[in-house]
């Protein structure tokens, strides 16, 4: 069994807004193993990005982690000093964002921004940093690296910029790379290229990846472990096989019905009915309850606990509890 590099326990994050406290993440737990890929799926607003930003402590000013632990190799990074946190960001753990068009500073050259990252975390001279920047651009498949270094972001295409973001994120060979929907803003052919590049680099550098997406296809292709989020909670987590072939939460099942099947068969797609929940006013029971076809009375009343479905596969759904109790009831009678 390989080493846990990141262990998130019962994470809570909320935002202070004029309308009240937005509880974007409510008790998320998962762990990431060295060199492995973890996928976070869930619909828009389910708290995927907020979870990712909480790990790096790059929430906006009104956001705060209000509870839980984030253990990086056993150390709680929530207890880090600002100085230690800066050492963690970019060096131990990097992130690439959804929109490469806006993620680079428009007023500085690619070279300047790339070298800034290199100089921050390694003790290279300016000259060495420039060589390293060139090397990185070559690594991520950017042609004419010398010229690119002198260009400004607006002179490059979206796919190119995302490659540069990846180069920047990998400049100090981090242990963890978080990718927050890295391909959503790109067109399909470029998407495939970027994903391929990430897989290739993972093999080369050996970092662990957290892949945030709402595209189950991407997850299926890239990830070893998956967590499914809904309403700021994890509703199910397990290996890719567990999730795809034995989903144990109604939301996951709905999610799988709502995508074209992975092996390309034509099937009728069934969207999940209803609207996402209001985070300002969280329901008392299961967050998914109002949209669940098989909801029980207790689903309205109480938040389901996370339960083991099979080794390494957990789900939080009352239906599983019911099934288990019925099962044990039958066995007893």
């Amino acid at each position, binding site marked *: 069994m390989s080493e846990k590099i990141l262990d998130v326990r019962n994470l809570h994050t909320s935002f202070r807004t004029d309308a009240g406290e937005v509880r974007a993440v409510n008790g998320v737990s998962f762990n990431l193993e060295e060199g492995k890929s973890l996928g976070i799926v869930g619909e828009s607003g389910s708290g995927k990005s907020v979870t990712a930003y909480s790990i*790096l402590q*790059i929430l*906006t*000013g009104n956001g705060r982690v209000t509870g839980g632990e984030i253990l990086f190799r056993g150390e709680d990074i929530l207890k880090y000093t*600002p100085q230690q946190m*800066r*050492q*963690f*960001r*970019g*060096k131990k753990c*990097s*992130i690439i*964002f959804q*929109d490469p068009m*806006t*993620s*680079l*500073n*428009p*007023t*500085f050259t690619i070279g300047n921004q790339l070298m*800034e*990252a290199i100089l*921050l*975390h390694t003790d290279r001279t300016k000259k060495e940093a420039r060589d390293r920047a060139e090397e990185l651009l070559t690594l991520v498949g950017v042609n004419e690296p010398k010229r690119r270094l002198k260009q*400004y972001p*607006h002179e490059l295409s979206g796919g190119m910029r995302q490659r540069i*973001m990846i180069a*920047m994120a990998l400049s100090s060979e981090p242990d963890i790379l978080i990718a927050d929907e890295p391909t959503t803003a790109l067109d399909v052919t470029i998407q495939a290229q970027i994903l391929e590049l990430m897989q290739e680099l993972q093999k080369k550098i050996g970092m662990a990846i957290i892949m945030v997406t709402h595209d189950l296809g991407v997850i299926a292709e890239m990830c070893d472990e998956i967590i499914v989020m809904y309403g700021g909670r994890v509703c199910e987590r397990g290996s890719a096989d567990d999730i795809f072939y034995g989903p144990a939460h109604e939301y996951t099942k709905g999610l799988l019905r709502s995508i074209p099947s992975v092996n390309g068969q034509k099937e009728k797609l069934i969207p999940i009915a209803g609207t996402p929940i209001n985070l300002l006013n969280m329901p008392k029971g299961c967050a998914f309850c109002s949209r669940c076809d098989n909801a029980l009375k207790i689903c309205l009343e109480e938040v389901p606990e996370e339960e083991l479905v099979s080794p390494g596969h957990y789900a939080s759904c009352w239906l599983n509890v019911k099934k288990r109790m019925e099962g044990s009831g039958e066995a007893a009678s």
Partner: protein
Amino acid sequence: MARYVCKRVLLAIVTVFIITLITFFTMNAIPGGPFNSEKASSPQVRAALEKRYNLDKPLPEQYILYMGGLFQGDMGISTKTGRDIRQTITESFKVSAKIGGLAALLATIVGVIMGSIAALRRNTVIDRLIVFFSTLSTAVPSFVLATLLLYFFCIRLDWISVWDTENQNIILPVIALALYPTAYITRLTKTSMLDVLNQDYIRTARAKGVARPKVIFKHALRNALIPVITYVGPMLAYILTGSMVVESIFTIGGLGSKFVTGITNRDYPMIMGTTIFLAVLMVTMNLISDIVYKIVDPRITFD
């Protein structure tokens, strides 16, 4: 870049040329002339004077004569004082430019600093104080402020003498001139800074592990200054040419007051001279601010 500058300079020349045309003919269209109010002058004297200043010739010819002189650097002499216009303008511009330049510098530095502080300390007491101050200062007209300053510092406190020909104190006029642009730049910087701090690239910089001061001074400030630069150019031109009101309250012989007295005296060469000078200054400042804008923001392309 060079092509763009050439194009802009040409355009500027055309603009100034059109301004001379408009000024010349409207100035002459206004009732009254340079020698109308001269009570004692006899018709003969007046005719002689008008001949001396070419005022007896048809207007188009007068205009051509004036422009001919202008191309040789001759702006004529004042119909009121008989002094050389170019020299008068140069001298009074020195006074205006000193006060105006200081005021512009003060406004930009203080405005950017206060605006940034307000943005970074949003919703704190400091932010509220800065907002209060800047709202107040944009609401107070400069002549009221100038009068108040004069009243308190010169008359009430007697720190500065009201009028001193030898060693004129420039602090009060500089403050009076700077207050409005300071407040404006403060607000502009704050809005723009708040906007920039929410941009994705700031998040990227933080995620890289860049320390907060560097995030602000390197990544945010440069972008936040872009709208400020577009304001500072024209503001500089406006302020350098001197505010007529402030100059007359503090009895400063600057360009602004020369312009005003030129108009009341129907001092044609003086009106033409100051207008052309102001136009050239304005056009140049705009050009400079556009070029600086391009240097700061590489996305701006020249075409």
